[in-house]
């Protein structure tokens, strides 16, 4: 199968100005403060893939998701979707048909549905807005969508508060599918759900992907979930992608010390008695990120070079890593999860 590229993101940056108001700055001193939420991220997603971004809170993974669907304009960098550049609001406004091809599923099923609207109207909104169908056909399509996500067509008459968290997430998915998109950005779609419900939603998403030939960008902090759903995984730390590769490769042969650290921190359900190495330190503030490789403050292999120079990503057998230790070949072999 020829790998058709759906999304191409190059050197994407987004800075947020978190300075105090002008008057306070003048009176109390202190300059502008900028959070580098996303600082030069590049990746590609091919048709039918699930590309996941993982990382701890504040690493910028949700910001990437919001940049791609256009909720924020990027500070710099380019977003090319199905061959069309959507790198700024003007380009997006010129290509509403492309915007319609991408949709988003949100984290909080309690906040992502308008509480005052009937479920049928919520799902029909993209259809009515784009005038895809009219009259009775809208209702029929809504019923079809509801059944596609495992609910009943009769549920269209109800309000969101009559549903459980998992059912609401199904409604969110139905709304996202209403405009027949082929690319879905899923921002932590299951992290607010219970495990048994999470399994339902993950299975549903996989089925839909297969039957509708969807491409996913999946954002999550849960490595186990990510390993289950993705074909490719990117690990983010403080606004940068530190490692990305095919899922199997990344989990079997993690190269970046941060990826290894995350894998080590996963609770062991098999109870093999594996001693977990608790990770040292905490994520530094993105306002004043450490110099050089931002991970050097927690990295056991950090050297002078790591403190001074930002590592560039290099590709080793399809695996991309931004780490000086890997480049210099002084990183020990990964002993594996079961060790």
């Amino acid at each position, binding site marked *: 199968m020829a790998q058709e590229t759906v999304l191409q993101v190059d050197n994407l940056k987004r800075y947020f100005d978190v300075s105090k108001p002008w008057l306070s700055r003048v009176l109390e001193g202190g300059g502008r403060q900028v959070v580098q939420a996303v600082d030069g991220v590049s990746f590609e997603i091919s048709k039918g893939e699930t590309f996941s971004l993982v990382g701890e809170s504040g690493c910028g993974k949700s910001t990437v998701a*919001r940049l791609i*669907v*256009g*909720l924020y304009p990027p500070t710099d960098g380019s977003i090319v979707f199905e061959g069309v550049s959507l790198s700024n609001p003007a380009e997006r406004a010129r290509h*509403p048909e492309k*915007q*319609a091809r*991408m*949709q*988003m599923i*949100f*984290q*909080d099923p309690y*906040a*992502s*549905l*308008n*509480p*005052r609207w009937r479920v049928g109207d919520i799902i029909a*909104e*993209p259809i009515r*807005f*784009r005038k895809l169908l009219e009259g009775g056909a809208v209702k029929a399509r809504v019923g079809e969508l509801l059944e596609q996500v495992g609910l009943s067509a009769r549920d269209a008459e109800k309000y969101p508060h009559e549903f459980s968290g998992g059912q609401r997430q199904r409604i*969110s998915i139905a*709304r996202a599918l209403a*405009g027949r998109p082929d690319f879905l950005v899923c921002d932590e779609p299951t992290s607010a759900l219970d495990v048994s419900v999470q399994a339902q939603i993950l299975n549903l998403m996989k089925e839909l992907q297969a039957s509708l030939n969807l491409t996913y960008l999946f954002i999550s902090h849960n490595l186990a979930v990510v390993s289950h759903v993705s074909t490719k995984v990117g690990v983010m730390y403080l606004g940068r992608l530190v490692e990305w590769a095919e899922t199997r490769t990344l989990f079997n042969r993690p190269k970046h010390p941060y990826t290894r650290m995350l894998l080590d921190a996963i609770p062991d359900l098999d109870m093999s008695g594996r001693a977990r190495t608790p990770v040292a330190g905490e994520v530094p503030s993105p306002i004043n990120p450490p110099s050089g490789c931002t991970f050097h403050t927690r990295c056991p292999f950090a050297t002078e070079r790591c403190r001074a120079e930002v590592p560039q990503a290099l590709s080793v057998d399809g695996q991309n890593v931004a780490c000086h230790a890997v480049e210099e070949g002084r990183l020990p072999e990964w002993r594996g999860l079961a060790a």
Partner: protein
Amino acid sequence: MVAQRLNAILDSDLWWSFTRSKVVVGAAIVTLLLFVAALIAPWISLQDPWDPGALQLINSRNPPVWIEGGTWEFPLGTDNQGRDMYSAILYGLRVSLVVGFLAVIFAMVLGILLGLASGYLGGMTDTVIMRVADVQLTFPAILIALLIGGIVRGVMTPADFEAVAVYVLVLSIGLSQWVQFARTVRGQTLVEKNKEYVQAARVIGLPARLIMLRHVLPNVMGPVLVIATINLAVAILTEATLSFLGVGVPATRPSLGTLIQIGNGFLFSGEWWIVIFPGITMAILVLAVNLLGDWLRDALNPKLR
């Protein structure tokens, strides 16, 4: 369908909290009675107090029926024009309520539109609207009303002015109230606009105008209704104050405030009924509306549940 709707209302938490408090039920009944009385005033009044031809000076300053000299023709006595106080109060209630409602609706619409724009669009729009609101807040409501009334009075002949007096009142009272609506709506909008359902609407591609009206507005209406109810009482009082000061509705079509002002002149000469009865009506109306507003505020506030 209707029965279903009715059932949903009778089953709702709001209705339940309503029936739990005797005071609130009482206030609602009193308010309703006063509204109905104002509505059907022409049919339950004894004379048309706005028709100069129906008034006879010979009947002026008659006492209420239970005092010597009083007759059933004028159960609550008459004022200095020979107006039956009972009928005048019913008609006055009409004026007070019309001015109050229109003023609040005007303030509400203006405040909601500016508040939504301010909160949702942010940036320069927000700064400009909120600074204007700040400036407006430094003037007392009465002063704004006096100012507008004064300007309109200056450019119009007295006869013309009399015809538009009610609308001038509505405009001036409404203008003095929009800030409160705008600020509340802005605050709520700031909360709602970061919720994911608004972001979902943006990803669908809806323009800001539609998102504000279809998504944000229905979700900020709760607090707006509370303010509207409480402000209705304030508007009625403001109208009465202005009429009392002589810059409100003309004396030929007196509101409750005008009646109180008229009666004020006779309080010390012994004709207390001219001021007391409109005063009591006013007090009951404002108290009842305020009680309803207080209840609504508590009932809609999830933190107090």
